């Protein structure tokens, strides 16, 4: 059902650089899983509301007040490449956008 080319496209969306071996393997495995999922088409879901929450909770909101996170330094320290209060990343431009 899925070919390697489609898998390549999905991998790009998922930000995963797959090898050719992985692409052909995933084409096969994902097709198998999607075939199985076809089972869902047996059921008539016309007029059925989709579940959006396992257990209904009305909207939860908190007061819109600024609160400083005490461990700010520790959070920044988790970064692979920290520069003061910034995260450093490589250049953003590329042919693929």
């Amino acid at each position: 059902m899925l070919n390697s080319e489609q898998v390549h496209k999905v991998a790009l969306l998922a930000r995963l650089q797959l090898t050719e071996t992985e692409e052909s393997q995933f084409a096969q495995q994902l097709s198998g899983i999607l075939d199985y999922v076809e089972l869902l088409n047996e059921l008539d879901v016309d007029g059925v509301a989709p579940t959006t929450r396992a257990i209904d909770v009305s909207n939860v909101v908190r007061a819109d007040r600024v609160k400083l996170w005490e461990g700010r330094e520790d959070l920044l320290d988790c970064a692979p490449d920290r520069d003061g209060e910034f995260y450093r990343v490589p250049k953003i431009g590329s042919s693929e956008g």
Partner: protein
Amino acid sequence: MASIREQHQQIVTKARSAQEITQEALDRISAVDGQLNSFLLVTGEQALAQAKAIDAKVAAGEEIGLLAGIPIAIKDNLCTQGIPTTCASKMLQNFIPPYESTVTAKLKAAGMVTVGKTNMDEFAMGGSTETSAFGKTANPWNLACVPGGSSGGSAAAVSAMECTVSLGSDTGGSIRQPAAFCGIVGLKPTYGLVSRFGLVAFASSLDQIGPFGRSVEDCAILLGAIAGYDAKDSTSLNVEVPDYTKALVPDLKGKKIGIITETMGDGLDSTVAAATHAAIEQFKALGAEVIEISCPRFRYGIAAYYIIAPSEASANLARYDGVKYGTRVENPENLLDMYNRTRAANFGPEVKRRIMIGTYALSSGYYDAYYLRAQKVRTLIKQDFEAAFEKVDVLISPTAPGAAFKLGEKTADPLSMYLNDLMTIPVNLAGLPALSLPCGFDAAGMPIGLQIIGNVLREEQMLQVAYAYEQATEWHKKSPTL
């Protein structure tokens, strides 16, 4: 190894110190974990320091709580401040959380002693603990078998007496199935009963944290300690937490139990079927009325789950991009190259597979056919449960179609691994509480689990039924010879 209540008695009567109890657990870990690999990290020094503090309180004549000084193991997807939390993934190999999860903060406040962080399937994706980036965990009953998953380390550790109790997380059966495979009790609470603040997210509409123990009582006590409203989790339910131990009454007169017809059909191991039938007879002997209940849409659970869970996972795992935490590849050419190669190099095959399914299901043109349809089927599955609970107090089924399988047996075929979650997945889709407890052994001597499912927030009913069964049987008294 003793129960929570026995260990508590030993500590307060000074028959044994908390340090001795902790040392017993650490010695056991040293002795058997080379074979099991239940633990990714053992925090012995910190554990002994925590135990020492409890002993000091006892010596000073201070009152201590039931859980003070009790050794516990924590699944490695729960953030522990200053202690590595890897999710068994190379992506988080060097991640040291700058904050504490709500559940572990509660356990700390209760004086529990954390002996270590347990192995799991990578990002909790798997049913055998074989997708861990840091080695497989073995089943204490037979080292050639899997402990189940994804919370396999937490289950094996309790079964092998490396700790008194442990915490796991359950998205499609990840507490109940390993509990069944390892011959212990494992409980997934109602969605929203336990705060998930600090639990590394997999599938947010399904994930719940819950306890493992060698008895129903130990699980009930631990559940009471972790349950409760938390403003830091927007799905947290603002409800009163009862004393679950009060529900532990060994009498089922007037209780109505439904056995789910669809779980007793094709593909069920004959010894599992026999153990389940024997359990039904036991429930009747205890005074319960047992009836067959059909949940016709139950069998669509796996298909719905393998759209919904990967879809949510693909969104949740987008955060691992090499910028704010986790790891990053060397010398990226540009931003996109950094994302693509960091994720390719540090996620394992199962995680990649699920991200791919989810990305595909959510991609333009496929959303209605997959994700939306799966969420509608989820509604139908919930309706089946709602109708069932009009008639009965709890539902029962086998926890898994068979006992623990061999290491490597299902790794080549992802779908065969997924199908093993047939009985547990619909429960997560409906947000219901459920537990697994021992109900027999298969021909090879591997434990079999019985699943008891409660209605929304009716943990007490479920625990009562489990407790009555446990007190009337001997299964839970058996332990692996390791």
